[in-house]
């Protein structure tokens, strides 16, 4: 079992969500985060004064998936979320020990 974590642009979220669903993903957990990265580091003008831009709104997706499905899911995310511009985000995977469904107590693959 793997946990796929993706950081994407807020504007890409709706399309990614739809694409994932179309690809058979049944569940995920979404949160709003701020990202620092290459995209920041520039300067903006506000009321005539300049200030540096650091943090930019991002959306984080967490998707539990079986090992064999992970690759496909990552591909869908990368394809849909990429606008070819800096700040499109990252996707990473971490190993998962076990999953339990709260409602039933089922665990493992049956829990997803």
């Amino acid at each position, binding site marked *: 079992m793997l946990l796929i974590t993706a950081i994407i642009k807020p504007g890409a979220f709706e399309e990614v969500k739809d694409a994932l669903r179309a690809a058979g993903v049944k569940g995920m957990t979404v949160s709003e985060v701020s990202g620092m990265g290459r995209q920041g580091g520039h300067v903006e003008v506000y009321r005539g004064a300049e200030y540096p*831009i650091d*943090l*930019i709104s991002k959306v984080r997706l967490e998707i539990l998936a079986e090992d064999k499905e992970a690759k496909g899911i990552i591909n869908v995310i990368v394809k849909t979320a990429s606008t070819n511009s800096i700040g499109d985000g990252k996707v990473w995977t971490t190993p998962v020990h076990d999953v339990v469904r709260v409602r039933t107590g089922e665990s493992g693959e049956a829990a997803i």
Partner: protein
Amino acid sequence: MAINTGDTAWMLVSTALVLLMTPGLALFYGGQVRARSALNMIMMSFVSMGVVGVIWVIYGYSMTFGKDLGSGLLGDPTEFIGLSALLSEDALFGGIPTILFAAFQAMFAVITVALISGAVADRMKFGAWVLFAGIWVTLVYFPIAHWVFDFDGGESDPGGWIANDLAAIDFAGGTAVHINAGVAALALVLVLGKRVGFGSKPFKPHNLTMVMLGAALLWFGWFGFNAGSAVGSNYLASVTFFNTIVATGAGMLAWLLVEKIRDGHSTTLGAASGIVAGLVAITPACSSVTPVGAMLVGAISSILSAYAIGLKYKFGYDDSLDVVGVHLVSGLAGSLLVGVFASSAAPAGVDGLLYGGGTDQLIKQAIACAAVIGYCFIVTFLLGKILDKTIGIRVKREEEIAGVDLVYHAESAYELGGVFKGGR
């Protein structure tokens, strides 16, 4: 005639109240859009306070209340340029200084323009809106306001054709303000097109407490709008004031009831919408109906609007915040119901269909409505098209998705967390 300090006091207040309606509207609208375009929505209303205000001084007042250029269609735009001509203790309009009357009427022009903006939420270029506001108020509002609000015997005799020749009853602007704004909204969104996601996404209000605050300020300000249209603190003002309370309350209850029955729950946005529908409907009618009549006008119009807001999904025009469904529909309903519920017991002294007055007044009302609808739609649609072909009025798709607040104003409405997020 001398100045009447009581009348003047009430008109000073009424003018302030109607001014407050525009920020009230800004909050009412601003709360209904998504957080990412709340500021832009608010700005559309605020900027009209500046643009229309300045134009009003230059030639707007003249076009509306200047000497009629013929047939009651338009005032002479040059008559009062700069308004210095009104600077005299002797320049009185009834019992109040004419400059105060000019201030009061300026606020009507401002809010009418601002009302339109609810329909174009999320997707109109800010610069294009500013330009549209200035041209539309000139080509559409001033002429129609002249038709409806310039009574013979005012400072520049003769006045507009609807007020005088037709003698339709539009006490405070059901036609010139609400139908006008509603029709303009429809014409403009037909040019502008739908929001990305229209029909599939809910677009729920981002801040309903702000919507309710806006609705409350609108109601509060509307007393200036309606009872202020009596241009004095008198019996007429008192009756129109009372009717503005009860029609609105009834409008709110009616909308809540429709929702409860149809959807299973009554919403806050429904309460706010019913309030506005009731206010819109009683605007033309408040001088001509009894309190019970006012409740019926408010309730019936609100029910019509509660159903009418669904039409945009059926016909596919994206009237984002239901300017058409509320202002056009309830404006029309209120204007026509004058012909039905008018009672000679009320100050206007006219009997409508229900009180044995026949269809006479109803027909006059219908003609006034039709004239405003026709003129406004044609001119607004053409204006929208021309602006779109020249400077372009719609934001880019990416800008719309990212949110017009960041793109056009470099701001986010809220930075509530401890971690500051900037940029785009």
